[in-house]
């Protein structure tokens, strides 16, 4: 457990090890959640990371004979 000092406006600095582990960078958003015995800080996955995770799922199942262009052209004509 690490002790963090609270600044005059309530700021705290998360330790680097945990920022790296959870991908928290300057500008990242985190959820501040009140729990029974304190406050939970939970990283919010960035939209880009979510998009790349979605890419993994889509790539596995996407029909191999259909390109991105064909898919949209097909949907626009059928």
């Amino acid at each position, binding site marked *: 457990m690490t002790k963090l000092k609270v600044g005059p406006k309530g700021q705290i600095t998360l330790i680097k090890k945990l920022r790296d582990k959870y991908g928290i960078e300057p500008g990242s958003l985190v959820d501040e959640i009140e729990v029974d015995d304190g406050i939970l800080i939970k990283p919010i996955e*960035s*939209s*880009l990371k*979510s*998009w*790349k995770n*979605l*890419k993994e*799922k*889509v*790539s596995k*199942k*996407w*029909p*191999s004979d*259909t*390109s*991105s*262009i064909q*898919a*949209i*052209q097909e*949907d*626009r*004509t059928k």
Partner: protein
Amino acid sequence: MKGVVVDSNVFIASLIENDVFYEVSINFIEKMDKEELTFHISMIVPIEVSCAIARRIGAKEADESEEIIHNWIKEKKVVVYKLNEKRMSESQNYGTKYKLKGMDAIIVQLAFELNLPLMTFDNEIIERAKGVQFFKS
């Protein structure tokens, strides 16, 4: 920040790792996410993206794509343009002039209206819509 009008096939290509346009499209999405580029899209684009995914992959993944695009919209990295009577009429005119498919005409109209380059991988649009400036990655 530079702006660009983006077609649905760019979003789809960035989700298919073995698509010929995967690298170009994902780099492009990353630039938008880093706020080096603003995406301007017609309201038909998120609809086409989620429908294309739903038809070929499933509803869950389609919903995820919708949610992520909506987050980018909330973050103002993607700007959505509604269809209205003026845009309908102009799209009809461009569609007639360049002999485009209806949805293609809506995308082309937005590029003309905003006077921004258009990013699409669709050669039919590139070859037909002569007056449009196309984005070079």
